[in-house]
């Protein structure tokens, strides 16, 4: 069974189409990057998988369940939104304990401490989110997405705002996780470090799927992988 199934999905915002029959699958334990130009529908796809939006047509399944109708599956989903904003009036610790408690996890305090240690948030635990730098907010958002050790992790630009040492820490933490990954990003190096497969979309449709190795094979001599991706996205047309 595929951990993530997206089949013939159509989604409109008003009269503007975001997805026009998108289909792809991610097997259990797979680590996939979701690539695409701006406006391709990457964030919409992640929001549909997180159960935050309802498709207008088609099928969305996570671990075989519809995340909108069968919300219990959300127990196993970790979602990092783009530009995540945790509760601004709460402290780092309060945010973590609150979300752990809302999720019904055993011992929210212990979970909060564990994840704070993992992501270097201890020194900020008593700071309110509104007083944190943008990078530390992102670090907290990642902590909130993984506090329940999800089976499926949906990450929208996970390394945004992070300095290089923190990026290394986050990549190391995520790499050790035993979960299915779908990572939306524009940066090939980020995709390359966190995933090994690619789902490329443009204009709300799948345009290519394969491994990084397949992609490299498509490059001309000394052509960087970014150029290959750009060529493929351009050929998808407007």
């Amino acid at each position, binding site marked *: 069974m595929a951990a993530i199934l997206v089949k013939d999905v159509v989604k409109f*915002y008003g009269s503007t189409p975001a997805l026009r029959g998108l289909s792809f699958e991610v097997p259990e334990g797979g680590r996939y990057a979701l690539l695409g130009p701006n406006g391709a529908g990457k964030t919409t796809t992640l929001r549909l998988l997180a159960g*935050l939006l309802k498709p207008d047509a088609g099928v969305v399944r996570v671990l075989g369940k519809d995340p909108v109708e069968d919300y219990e599956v959300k127990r196993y989903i970790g979602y990092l939104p783009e*530009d995540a904003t945790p509760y601004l009036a709460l*402290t780092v610790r309060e945010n973590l304990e609150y979300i752990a408690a*809302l999720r019904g996890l055993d011992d929210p305090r212990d979970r909060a401490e564990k994840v704070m240690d993992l992501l270097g948030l201890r020194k900020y635990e008593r700071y309110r989110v*509104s*007083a944190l730098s*943008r990078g530390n907010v992102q670090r907290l958002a990642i902590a909130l997405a993984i506090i329940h050790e999800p089976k499926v992790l949906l990450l929208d630009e996970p390394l945004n705002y992070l300095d290089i040492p923190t990026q290394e820490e986050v990549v190391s933490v995520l790499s050790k996780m035993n979960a299915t990954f779908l990572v939306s990003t524009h940066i090939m190096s980020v995709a390359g470090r966190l995933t090994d497969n690619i789902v490329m979309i443009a204009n709300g449709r799948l345009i290519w799927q394969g491994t990084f190795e397949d992609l490299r094979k498509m490059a001309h001599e000394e052509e960087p992988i970014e150029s290959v991706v750009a060529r493929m996205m351009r050929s998808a047309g407007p």
Partner: protein
Amino acid sequence: MPALRLIRFVIKTRLSGGALALLLFVALVMLATGLSMTFSKARSPPTPGATEFFRGYMTFMLAILMLAPLPAGAQMSVLKSDRDYLFTLPVRPRDLGLALYIAYMLLSGVYTLAFIGVYELVLGVPPLYAAINTALLIVMLTSLWHVVMDLGRRRGLLLSLALVGWSLTALVKDPVTPVSALYGYYVPGTLTLAAVTAALTYLSLSRLSRAPLLYSFPISEPLRPKGAEGGGLLSFQDVRGLRALVKLRMSLVQLGFGTRTPEAAGVEVGRARLLRALVTMSVVAAALAVAGYVLHRLDVLTLEALRGLSSEQNSTSSFEGFIAFLLVVAFPPMYSMILTAMELPTAFVGLERPWLAFTSLEPGNYMRSSGLITFAQSLILNVPLALSYAVLGLVGVPGCLAVVPLLLIMVPSVALISHFLTAYFVLTPQIKFEGLATTRVSGKQVFASLLLMSVMFGMFTVPLLSALSIGGPVLSLYVSIAFLVAALPLMLTRGPWRRAALNLVEGGYS
């Protein structure tokens, strides 16, 4: 960029087409009402009581407008996009300031016309003075709202309070206040209003002209609010699921504001223990009870004094009684309603979203629970005021008993409905790390604000009608129960709340 094009551009970035059309429609309706009232006044002059009613209404409304800028005020600040794009255009600073000012005035002008602009003629103010005063009031409020937003919450509130305090001295026949023209002091009143308007407008325009310099700081610079570090932390160790939500919301009152002042920019998020907020409300309620009782014993706040308004005789005592009624019986519940039934849910929805991303709860269930907690919070915060009014009602202060069901039933119901509407129609932008998301005022927002303002007037008219024995306290009970009945489907069903959660995401909440 030519001035006219610049003005059009600024208006377009603040108002949607629908909002503009709705505002202009309201302005036209109000002007037509004003003209019709003027003609009917010529045919049958209003009783002195009715004239006093309109005078009191206008003074009261002006005080409200000065103290609490209407939703239009939210757009009367320099936006992040202005800093990023408008300020980089090769435009003379003076033209830029003027364009921003005129765009603001379009919003504030229509709101001013909608609520106070037409009654001066009914008060017998000569047409020329009425026209000059109305124009000056529009400019004065535009400038005041901008300056208040620019000064920041605390200093802005102090300025508004000072202006309101001064204006209220017109009630004791002070000819030199911004509203004295309403009380027959046409020349000194108009001149005072002109002077205040000139001073505030100079301040507003000069700051807007220097906007590129004043607002050139990095907006993403984090704010460090007081108490950001340390202090009594909440623990969620002993709760699970929705109980965690109940614990959070029943422990804290959260408020969020987007701020863009020269000193700081970003988001200012306040939190207070619910218990502390309750103590504050109790102190206010006790002070109000004492003031009401004293005024009643002094024969100022009596039924006889109020009834004088509806009679043919115009007596000073009835006028003072009416003003005392406004200040003690009508004003505080209305303000409480603004705070606990409108600002509370708006701030909550504006601050809300992390649960959408980070929890596994069913959205409809979470949103409905959240709405019910808003109902409970609003109810709890209004109990002290309700007790004070019950006591005042029992000692014979007119209209007070009618306020009790309004505070205990209507206000919490409006809070719940307001919470739902704010979420369902995505009426408030999400408060993000860098402050409020920049957005235009939509037609829906204008409509909702006018609707909520109309409900707010219920807090004013129902006790007045009850005090004048039109309907009695039972009227208040019926009105309150009607709101409760309207809120009931939202209490009992999850479906609409679920749709609201989806709308929040589609409307830009992520």
